[in-house]
Structures are given as structure tokens and as C-alpha cells.
């Protein structure tokens, strides 16, 4: 049998499975009970409230702790167990370390700044990378639906990422935003720093035009708060939503079993795409943009 006929046969068989499912189960109508947004709901596990501030420990906090623990644990363990002839894990970590040192920090910052800010940037990269990656490992964290094994309530397995919640990227972005502004003020002085927001080549311009451009620059600096946080948040949230819908959520929501057969293989493709590209790329982008902002705030010429 030639490859072509095998591929054709596979496709026909696959379509037949979808049609069979469609005939057997048909259209069961729209499912009103299943709410996709509940997959991202945060149930308080340990209630902690100080005044009106809710500090409850929930799923996102668990993922944060896990990511921090993994970041610290991996790096400390690798640095304690350095070998002359690196094994696989050490090689991988060395490649990532080299990326943060040479590419992210060295490529965007001057020498003195690079030495000062390398630990921060590398930590950001590894922390976001670990948060993204553990978001694709199914963990028993879904307390919304519990399964009972011998009378013991066990939370069902679910995927969730701390970075798919706007609070965490926003908190990281605030740290970055404040630190690059403070660093710029330290390097150039308070007035000098805000003067440096104006692009060069405007010396002959009248003050009104300069003021207008300064307003635009102020807006662009404020928009960085939104763009940096929403970029990470939206990428991870969209990835998880896509996995949820492709992996059966759409079929359940619409009550069409045949659709599930068609979308399920897409879930595998998107899983590989999200885990292989987006998780690393978003961590890389966040750290690189932080380095670019820090470099832009302290560079002599704008």
C-alpha cells in the first residue's frame, strides 16, 4: 500500500469516527451547566483576611509557591552539584544561564548596569519560565469538582498557570516599571531623566511642540504597564483556553460529540506549541523588554 492511500484511508477512517459519534449521540443541545470561566476560578483553600484585604491561600498562590520553590531549588541544586563533565540537566541550565547572561542582559545593557541587573533579569526569566511550564502539568488542584476514592475527597486534575491570572504579571510589571524609573532617575537626576524621555533632535522645536511630544512619551511609558503585563497574561490565558476548548470543552459546551473528535487532535498540536514555544518565548520577552527598558532609562543618548 502506498503512503498516499494509507493517508487517505486514515483520513476517511477518522471522518467515519466523527460521523459515527455524530450519529450515535447527535446534538444534545447547548450545555448550560458547564461554565468555561470556572476553570480559572480561585477558591480560597485557607481563608486569611486582614480587614478588607483578602489574603486567602488559593490555587494561584500554590502555583506561585511551587514556581518560586522550583526556581530556587533548581538553581541552588545545580550550582552545588557542578561537574567538570556536565550531565544533561546541567547542560540545559547552562544554556539557559548563558541566554540570560549574554543575550538578554549583555545585549541590551551597558557593562556596569549588566553586572548590577543580571541577577534580577535572570530570576525574572527563570521564575516566569517555571510558572509557565508548571501550568502545563496536570496537578490535582481543581477543588471545584472532587472525586471520591474510598470516601476520600480528592481534587480532580487540572491545568492552571499563575501567570494566567492578571495579578501576578501585573505585580511583576510594577516591580519592573518602578525599578527602571528609579534607576533612570539615579543615573541622570530627576529633571535630567524626564528630559531624556524626549527623543533627540528636537532642540530647535518650539516649547508647545515639545510639550505635546512629552505628553505622548508619558503615555507610552504608562502603556508599558499594560502592555508588559497583558502580553504575558493574555498569552498564557489564551493558550489555556485554547487547550480547554480543543480538548473537549467546545464539544461539551455545544453538546456535539462529533465536534470533539475533530478538535481533540488539535489540542495535542496546541499543547506542543504552547509548551515548546510560547512558555519559553514569553519568559524571554518579559526579561528582554525589562532589559531594554532598563537600558533605555540609563543610556546616555536616548
Amino acid at each position, binding site marked *: 500500500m502506498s503512503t498516499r492511500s494509507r493517508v487517505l484511508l486514515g483520513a476517511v477512517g477518522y471522518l467515519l469516527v466523527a460521523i459515527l459519534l455524530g450519529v450515535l449521540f447527535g446534538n444534545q443541545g447547548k450545555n448550560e451547566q458547564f461554565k468555561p470561566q470556572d476553570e480559572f476560578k480561585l477558591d480560597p483553600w485557607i481563608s486569611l483576611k486582614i480587614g478588607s484585604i483578602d489574603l486567602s491561600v488559593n490555587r494561584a498562590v500554590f502555583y506561585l509557591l511551587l514556581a518560586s520553590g522550583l526556581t530556587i531549588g533548581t538553581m541552588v541544586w545545580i550550582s552545588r552539584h557542578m561537574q567538570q563533565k556536565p550531565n544533561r540537566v546541567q547542560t540545559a541550565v547552562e544554556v539557559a544561564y548563558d541566554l540570560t547572561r549574554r543575550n538578554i542582559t549583555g545585549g541590551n545593557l551597558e557593562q556596569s548596569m549588566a553586572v548590577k541587573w543580571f541577577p534580577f533579569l535572570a530570576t525574572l526569566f527563570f521564575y516566569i519560565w517555571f510558572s509557565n511550564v508548571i501550568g502545563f502539568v496536570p496537578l490535582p488542584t481543581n477543588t471545584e469538582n472532587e472525586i471520591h476514592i474510598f470516601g476520600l475527597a480528592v481534587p480532580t486534575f487540572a491545568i492552571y498557570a499563575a501567570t494566567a491570572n492578571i495579578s501576578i504579571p501585573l505585580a511583576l510589571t510594577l516591580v519592573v516599571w518602578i525599578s527602571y524609573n528609579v534607576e533612570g532617575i539615579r543615573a541622570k537626576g530627576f529633571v535630567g531623566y524626564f528630559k531624556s524621555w524626549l527623543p533627540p533632535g528636537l532642540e530647535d522645536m518650539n516649547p508647545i511642540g515639545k510639550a505635546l511630544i512629552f505628553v505622548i512619551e508619558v503615555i507610552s511609558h504608562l502603556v508599558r504597564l499594560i*502592555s508588559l503585563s*497583558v502580553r504575558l497574561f493574555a*498569552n498564557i490565558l489564551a493558550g489555556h483556553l485554547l487547550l480547554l476548548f480543543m480538548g473537549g470543552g467546545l464539544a461539551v459546551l455545544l453538546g456535539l460529540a462529533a465536534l470533539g473528535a475533530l478538535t481533540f487532535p488539535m489540542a495535542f498540536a496546541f499543547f506542543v506549541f504552547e509548551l515548546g514555544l510560547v512558555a519559553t*518565548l514569553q519568559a524571554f520577552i518579559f526579561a*528582554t523588554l525589562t532589559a531594554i527598558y532598563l537600558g533605555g532609562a540609563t543610556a546616555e543618548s536616548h
Partner: protein
Amino acid sequence: MADLLIPLAQASTDLTPITDAGKAIALGVGAGLGSIGAGIGIGIIFGKEIESVARQPEMKDELQAIRWLGFALTEAVAFYTFIFGLIAFFLA
């Protein structure tokens, strides 16, 4: 004209279906139109990169880092529209 307007006026007493439809349109059309722009942008980035590598193959490694930066920055634009669509759909 009046024939067309009477059903609309009757429907307007109960606005829930119209609001729901508006939300669905906001999510679908918003995210869809946003994806067009980002799709064109990503196409241009990769196309230009291929052109550049074909012209100067020794620059390949340097271009690779810039390509991923451009890709992620452009791709994020599609997700901004998607997030605002989701906000319109679930929170508005």
C-alpha cells in the same frame, strides 16, 4: 418601514437577547479582526527574515533573536483584542 420597526420596538422591551448578541459580536468580531492585523504582521516578520537570511546567511543567528522578539510583540496584539473581547463577553 413601519413593518420593520414594530418588531424591533416589541423586542426592545426585553433587552437581554440583544445584549447577549452584542457581547457575542464583540468577542467574535473583535478577536477576529484583531487576528487579521497580527497575522499580516507575523507574516511580514517571517517573510523579511527569510529574505534577509537568503541575502546574508552569516547573519542568521543574530536575526533569529530579533525575529522571536518581533514575533512575540506582534502576536501579543492579537491577544490584546482577544482579552478585551473576553472582558466584553464575561464581565460587561
